[in-house]
Structure formats: structure tokens, C-alpha cells
């Protein structure tokens, strides 16, 4: 049996991958010393570092070496294996960038087994709450924790609970908002699918705190696996008496039901969500009155996001202070982001509040897939904004992102590189909001449509000099006069791109050019004769016969026939098609 394992990976930006070379070298060294039966060397696919040269990790000590040179290998084997100590001056310490609070059980337990959740101290927070704390004390603890809503607005959870508790009523409700409609965001789905009981436990604690007797999961029907797992988990909780009458033998009783959403983005907004549960058309209504005063069936109702609730058991298990130790002054705990777009490692990351965007994108995400520069990072989905490269060192919390013209939002984080056009991005997000606008209020219904028209003409090369001013004016009206967050927030992607990428808009409007090469109407294709090898691949692949010529005389693209499908651009092996 091996006593040690050496993991190797070349993470360098160098031209060739040296992993195999180092691997063989290490094997040779071990063989010379007759250590090959004691130490195994393994090539790994990803060692958690990027652009740091050859990285070596020695197990079980977990010592780490970055930027290892060939000359260091002998010394490394000598020290770590023969002398049983780290190589002086070479060993690195790495503080983990990710902290797992919300995702504490995700991928670690079988989500369909309540026993496994209980084995991880599941429902122990509930026991503590029911036996040791009265509702006021629960709210007090929540205040100490500093937890703020993860559904978008960042409203302090304890205040929401307190207000709902304060109102006298014969019945109260709690709702878990699992509508998750932001493009690119899927944190909530993953938590529901991977650790459903933590959300249920959070919801029961919320119900106890505000005095609710009934709760609902509002889940979009496009999440069938999440629905199935929540259903199973609820049935298990009922069987164990963790839901229903006299929970855990106490006099607290509480029931939970599931309601499915049909996938309208606006139904994630709390008042529209309530209307939807009531069986009405899912449209928002003016607030106040807030749901905490007049919610579901006009009863006081606390609505919380999936991730917010998944934090709750942790707070009571480990203590509010332990939770509040993570994060910044105003934003406590962690945030889960769905890191997507042009980033190399797309997936879910859970990071302490206050981490910088750069750390998320480069240290965790591994930079861009293309190796090109990051142009901007989009946060907050369709109500958020783009944050340009210059601000990548901004610590992520509610206030900082807002200052930059974006928002924390629910956790979508989309990385954009130099091939992304900011006019196109603005058009995409606004187009989403126009599609999803419920039409109830005029600013959102008409304003969004008009703005989209302006953006479309800019992208087509028909923009006018005062278009940016028009966009800003309509944005202002929408922000001030829309009925709900959808209309109020939808101008944000437009405004933030206008603010940070003014010259890119100008380039589209004045010079009819798209610098990123995205807006098809502004691009023309031609053959670079010096690079063309006359292989005829473009000629045979053009679906509309817009390329003429032959192998002797060369080829030419006929612009009046070209439909800009980019087929020639894609098939040319010699990069001989120019796109300008």
C-alpha cells in the first residue's frame, strides 16, 4: 500500500502541457530511490490553481507547491518522502476561497434520505429552537446573525419576521420562494435538489418565529427534480413528526404544501407570487401594504428565498456569532453564485461576502475559457448591471455592487470576454424583461418595448445621435413609475452598459461598427487573399452560394447575396475570412 500520493498538474499558460513530463520525471526519481512502491504519482485534471505553472500536492500532508521547476523535483522527493517534511521555501499555504454554509450538505449526502440529513445534525437546529427559544428570541438571534435576504433585495430577514410576527391575525403564512427565474441562475435549484431538508427546516423555524400554521413551497414547474425531491422530503418529515401536529412532541404544529409556478419571471416577485398561489393571474400589486401585513389571502405572510432559508438551520446550529464572523460589516455570511458565461470553470461557488470579483473569476473560476481578457462581469440578472474589468477588485457585498450600478441579485454571475458586445448584452437582458413583463403597468409594458426598439436600431446600424439620451430618459421613467421590481430594474443592464461602455455605443451609432464583432448587421465578410489557400471549403459550404470563384483564380464573397450566417468563417482552417 502507498503511504503517500503526489498529485501533479501543469496549470501554466505555457504553450505545452508539461504534466506528463513532470509525472515521468517524478516516477524516475522514485524508481532510482526504490520508493515506487511507497509513493504513487497521479496526474490530475484540475488541481484548483490556474496559470501557476506546475502545481504539486502531496497527500496526506496536503502540502502544496506552485510553479515547481524541473530542478526542484529531486529536492521535493528528498524532503517530502525521505525526510518527511515540506521543502523549505517552496511550500505554499492556500487559504480556501470557498466556505460552505448553504451548500454544506450538497454533494455530501443522499438528498432523498432524511436519515442522512439527520446524521449531519439535521433538524437539530429545529429541536433547539422549539425547546429552548421563544419566537422573540429566535428573531433576536436572526438579528445577531445579520442574515439578509438572498432573493435579490437583501432585506434583513429578522425584520421581515418581526413585522410579520407583530401583526395580530388568526392565521399567518410562510412561503419559500423557489421560482428562480433569472437567466443563468440555478443556485436554488441545486440546493432544493441536493439538500431539500435544510430548506424545509429553515421554513419550519421561520413559521415558528412568526407564528404561522401553514407554509408553501412555490417552485417553478420547470424544476421537476427539485419538485420531486421536496415532495419526498416533505413526506419523510411528516412521517417522522417533523411536520404536522405537535412537532417533536411540542405544542407547535405546522403544515407545508407545494404550489407549482408556470415559469413566468414576474411570479418570483412576492405580490405576484401570492396572487398566483391564490389562483389568480400572476401580476404584482402596489406595496404597501407589504405581505408581512397583508399577504396570502390577506393574512400576514413572510416570503423568503430558498438560499435565505437554507442558512437558517446553520445559524441556530453553530450560533449567530459564528455566522456573523463571515462576511463584511453590512453583509454577513456567504453568497452562492452560479458562475457562468465565458469562464473556464462554470458551476456553483459559495464565497464569503467581501471576496473580490477577481478572486471569484480568476482564482476559483480559472479565468476565461478563451484566455482572452475579461471585459465585464454581469451580476443580478435582468435587474442587475455589468461591472467592467476596472472594478474587478471590488469586494462583493450588497452596497458595493449597488454603488457600481449593479445589484447582488439572486446570484447569477456571468463572465464576459472581449468577444461580447455590450449593446448586444443590453438588448438580450432587456429583451428578456420585455418578454416577461406582465403588462399591468404602462411604464414597464410600453417603456421596455420602446427601449428595445432603440437598442435594436443601434445594433442594426440605424442608431441616432440622441439615442443614448432617449434610453436614459425612458429608463428614468421606468425606474420611478413601474409597479414592481421587474420594470424598475429592467433598465439597469442598459444604463450600466451605457455608463461604462459609452464608446462602444458610439462606435455602433456613429461609425456603424461593432468592435466585438457580434452585431451581425454591422459586419461584412471578405476573404483575405494573402491567407487564402484556395481549398474551396468555404465555397462548398456556403448555403446561399454567395461565394464565387474557383481553385485557380481564388474566391470572393458576394455581399449582396451573403446572409451573414458565418458558415465560411467557421469552416475556414486558415483564418482567411475577415469579419469587420
Amino acid at each position, binding site marked *: 500500500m502507498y503511504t503517500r500520493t503526489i498529485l501533479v498538474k501543469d496549470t501554466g499558460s505555457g504553450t505545452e502541457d508539461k504534466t506528463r513530463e513532470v509525472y515521468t520525471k517524478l516516477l524516475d526519481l522514485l524508481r532510482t530511490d526504490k520508493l515506487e512502491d511507497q509513493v504513487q504519482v497521479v496526474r490530475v*485534471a*484540475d*488541481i484548483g490553481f490556474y496559470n501557476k505553472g506546475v502545481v504539486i500536492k502531496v497527500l*496526506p500532508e496536503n502540502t502544496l507547491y506552485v510553479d515547481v521547476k524541473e530542478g526542484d523535483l529531486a529536492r521535493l522527493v528528498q524532503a517530502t518522502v525521505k525526510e518527511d517534511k515540506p521543502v523549505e521555501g517552496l511550500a505554499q499555504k492556500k487559504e480556501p476561497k470557498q466556505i460552505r454554509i448553504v451548500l454544506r450538505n450538497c*454533494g455530501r449526502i443522499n438528498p432523498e434520505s432524511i436519515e*442522512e440529513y439527520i446524521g449531519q445534525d439535521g433538524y437539530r437546529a429545529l429541536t433547539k429552537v422549539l425547546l429552548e427559544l421563544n419566537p422573540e428570541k429566535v428573531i433576536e438571534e436572526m438579528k445577531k446573525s445579520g442574515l439578509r435576504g438572498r432573493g435579490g433585495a437583501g432585506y434583513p430577514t429578522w425584520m421581515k419576521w418581526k413585522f410579520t410576527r407583530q401583526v395580530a391575525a388568526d392565521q399567518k403564512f410562510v412561503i419559500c420562494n423557489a421560482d428562480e427565474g433569472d437567466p443563468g441562475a440555478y443556485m436554488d435549484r441545486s440546493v432544493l435538489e441536493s439538500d431539500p431538508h435544510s430548506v424545509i427546516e429553515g421554513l419550519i423555524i421561520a413559521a415558528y418565529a412568526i407564528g404561522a400554521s401553514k407554509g408553501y413551497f412555490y417552485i417553478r414547474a420547470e424544476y421537476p427534480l427539485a419538485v420531486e425531491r421536496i415532495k419526498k422530503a416533505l413526506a419523510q418529515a411528516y412521517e417522522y413528526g*417533523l411536520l404536522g401536529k405537535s412537532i417533536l412532541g411540542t405544542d407547535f404544529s405546522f403544515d407545508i404544501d407545494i404550489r407549482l409556478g408556470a415559469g413566468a419571471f414576474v411570479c418570483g416577485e412576492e405580490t405576484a407570487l401570492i396572487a398566483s398561489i391564490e389562483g389568480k393571474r400572476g401580476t404584482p400589486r402596489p406595496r404597501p401594504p407589504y405581505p408581512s401585513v397583508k399577504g396570502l389571502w390577506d393574512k400576514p405572510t413572510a416570503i423568503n428565498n430558498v438560499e435565505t432559508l437554507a442558512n437558517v438551520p446553520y445559524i441556530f446550529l453553530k450560533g449567530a456569532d459564528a455566522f456573523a464572523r463571515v462576511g463584511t460589516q453590512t453583509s454577513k455570511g456567504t453568497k452562492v453564485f452560479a458562475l457562468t458565461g465565458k469562464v473556464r470553470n462554470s458551476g456553483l461557488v459559495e464565497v464569503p461576502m467581501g471576496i473580490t470579483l477577481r478572486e471569484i473569476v480568476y482564482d476559483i473560476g480559472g479565468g476565461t475559457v478563451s484566455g482572452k481578457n475579461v471585459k465585464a462581469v454581469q451580476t443580478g440578472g435582468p435587474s442587475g448591471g455589468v461591472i467592467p474589468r476596472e472594478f474587478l477588485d471590488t469586494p462583493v457585498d450588497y452596497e458595493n455592487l449597488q454603488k457600481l450600478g449593479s445589484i447582488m441579485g439572486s446570484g447569477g454571475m456571468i463572465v464576459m470576454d472581449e468577444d461580447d458586445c455590450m449593446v448586444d448584452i443590453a438588448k438580450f437582458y432587456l429583451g428578456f424583461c420585455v418578454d416577461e413583463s406582465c403588462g399591468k403597468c404602462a411604464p414597464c409594458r410600453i417603456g421596455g418595448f420602446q427601449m428595445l426598439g432603440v437598442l435594436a436600431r443601434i445594433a442594426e446600424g440605424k442608431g441616432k445621435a440622441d439615442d443614448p439620451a432617449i434610453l436614459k430618459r425612458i429608463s428614468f421613467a421606468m425606474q420611478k413609475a413601474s409597479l414592481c421590481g421587474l420594470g424598475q430594474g429592467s433598465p439597469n443592464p442598459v444604463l450600466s452598459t451605457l455608463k461604462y461602455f459609452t464608446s462602444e455605443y458610439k462606435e455602433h451609432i456613429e461609425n456603424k461598427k461593432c468592435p466585438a464583432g457580434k452585431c451581425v448587421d454591422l459586419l461584412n465578410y471578405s476573404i483575405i487573399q494573402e491567407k487564402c489557400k484556395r481549398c474551396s471549403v468555404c465555397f462548398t459550404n456556403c448555403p446561399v452560394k454567395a461565394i464565387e470563384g474557383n481553385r485557380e483564380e481564388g474566391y470572393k464573397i458576394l455581399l449582396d447575396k451573403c446572409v451573414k450566417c458565418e458558415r465560411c468563417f467557421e469552416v475556414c482552417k486558415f483564418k482567411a475570412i475577415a469579419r469587420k
Partner: protein
Amino acid sequence: MEKLTPEKLERLSRTSKHKAKNWIRVGMSTCGIAAGAGEVYAAFVEEARKRNLQVEVQKCGCLGMCYAEPLVEVNVEGAPQVVYGKVTKEIAVKILEKHVVSKMLVNDYIFTMET
């Protein structure tokens, strides 16, 4: 099933801790399933049975590294606990034969997690 009291919950918590020494966990959330985790899970179950291996094959949720799905975490006595990514049916067999049986980690498929 018996309704829990605080005492019974406590007891259940103690007896429900992971007992298996050797286990393989396959990530079976939407991201994993979309990448082929169902097939990989079935391969592990089937091939482990064929070889009569003392290893528990379990389903779990998402570890977060969606770019490397299907993800499989392996813990067997005598070898470090690691996560394999982009696992296929063929790699599953390799993991069983090399890692589980011979305690040798499989090259080129390990994704190390920081936490």
C-alpha cells in the same frame, strides 16, 4: 414510522452517521444527470456487483463543479479520498479496478476541491 421526540432524534442522528468505510458517491442533480450521471451510477452498481466488491455506491446532490460533471467522489480504505470528474462508464470501470481494488488513483480525471 415512529414520530420523533428530541431524544429519538438525537439517537437517530448518532446511528445515521456514515458507517460504510468504502463508498462511491455519484452526483445526481439535474446538472449531473444531464451530463450522464444516471448511466455512470448504473455502471458502478452493476460492475461492483459483478466483481463482488465491498463498496457502497450512493447517490448524492451537486458538489458545484458543474463543468466537470458527472462528478464521482471515492473513498476507500488505503487511498486518499478524491473527486473524479467527467466520468464515463469506461472510467467507472477503471475507477473500480484501479482505485477500489488496487488502491491506485486513476490518472487524468481527478478534480481537487479546495474545501
